[in-house]
């Protein structure tokens, strides 16, 4: 190992190759070229190599996604690259990871996307849920005197058992809705799940107002 190695992390496989070339040149041309490494040097080499090379194939597989995206940090990245430099099976695994990943991404592009109305639907559910939570915390939530107000996207308004039709209110749907809300109140409050039911089966968003 050179002094450069102790200061800077290895960031590319080519760095490893350069280091090896540099080390072998120095060993063959330096003043101690004829000498075998001392005991201390051998121990140091073994320690360094054991630390850097102890990443197993299973460990490398485990971090393959961030490794392929170059998102690992030192020393994990250095250890993974060190392992890859000497493990053809993991290099094949990495290449295969990139292939499968790219194949899924390219075929995924042919699938339909999230519809533009998704956010407005979510926002409506959040609003409804917020109102229902407020009602469930109201002491007189069992009181049927509460006025149930339902607002359909087209602007229909439902108040208690009165239905004022602004546009195309379907009375069957409105009655089913009122039945559901009344039953829920009799059972002890409007459960949050009712919001989803109302939206899914009736196409209505509900909120409540205290008299």
């Amino acid at each position, binding site marked *: 190992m050179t002094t450069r190695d102790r200061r800077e992390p290895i960031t590319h496989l080519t760095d490893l190759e350069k280091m090896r070339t540099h080390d072998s040149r120095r060993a063959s041309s330096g003043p101690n070229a004829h000498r075998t490494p001392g005991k201390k040097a051998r121990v140091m080499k073994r320690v360094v190599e054991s630390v850097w090379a102890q990443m197993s194939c299973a460990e490398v597989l485990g971090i*393959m996604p961030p490794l392929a*995206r170059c998102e690992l940090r030192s020393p994990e990245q250095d250890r993974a690259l060190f392992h890859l430099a000497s493990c053809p099976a993991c290099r094949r695994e990495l290449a295969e990871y990139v*292939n*499968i990943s790219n*194949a899924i991404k390219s*075929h995924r592009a042919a*699938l339909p*996307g999230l519809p533009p109305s998704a956010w407005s639907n*979510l926002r409506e559910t959040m609003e409804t849920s917020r109102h229902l939570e407020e009602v469930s915390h109201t002491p007189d939530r069992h009181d049927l005197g509460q006025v149930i107000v339902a607002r359909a996207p087209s602007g229909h308004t439902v108040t208690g058992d009165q239905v004022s039709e602004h546009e195309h209110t379907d009375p069957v749907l409105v009655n089913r809705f009122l039945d559901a809300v009344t039953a829920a109140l009799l059972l002890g409050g409007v459960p949050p799940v009712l919001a989803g039911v109302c939206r899914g089966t009736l196409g209505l968003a509900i909120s409540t107002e205290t008299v």
Partner: protein
Amino acid sequence: MSGPRREDKGLALVRAIPNSECAMREFFEEFGPQIFHYALTILGDTHAAQEVVQETMIGVWRGASRFTASSSVSTWVYSICHNKIVDYIRRESRHVRRASGADLSASAVTFENEPCGTWSYIDPGGDSMEFWETFRRLPNGQREVILLFYDAGFSVAEVAEILEIPAGTVRSRLHAGKQRLRVLLKGGSL
């Protein structure tokens, strides 16, 4: 956006969600499309996937104030999404069994062996049709680990955390799923 930066942004948004609808919207725009595709490729039905996305986002909205950052934001969101998908499949399966008069207690409905959606709403056409047709023939458990590992880019440990299964199970499902995909797509791009 790269992983770490995306995580930072996700965490900042989660912190802001309890007091800001704008943060919720931004979070939805950041994570909504990818969890939609995740749910879609598991369920094969756009309506079902939309429902799962909506339920997941409601889960995020309600749980944001309790999020402790003990896991990454992405892991947390996918974990909620996975649970909603499992709930959806169980719910649908119960409907089907009830409608057909089958005994609901006769056998446990498990996510891994339950057949997936009809895929009737997906019509990508061309090579992609063949790819997704092949993909849907994998068991749910294998499909999930393949999507989370190869597409969403989670590590084995993170996939294990999302699905609440041991890392060894993730590795074996990855291996089995990959082998099956290879066989199914013989001569294909894999």
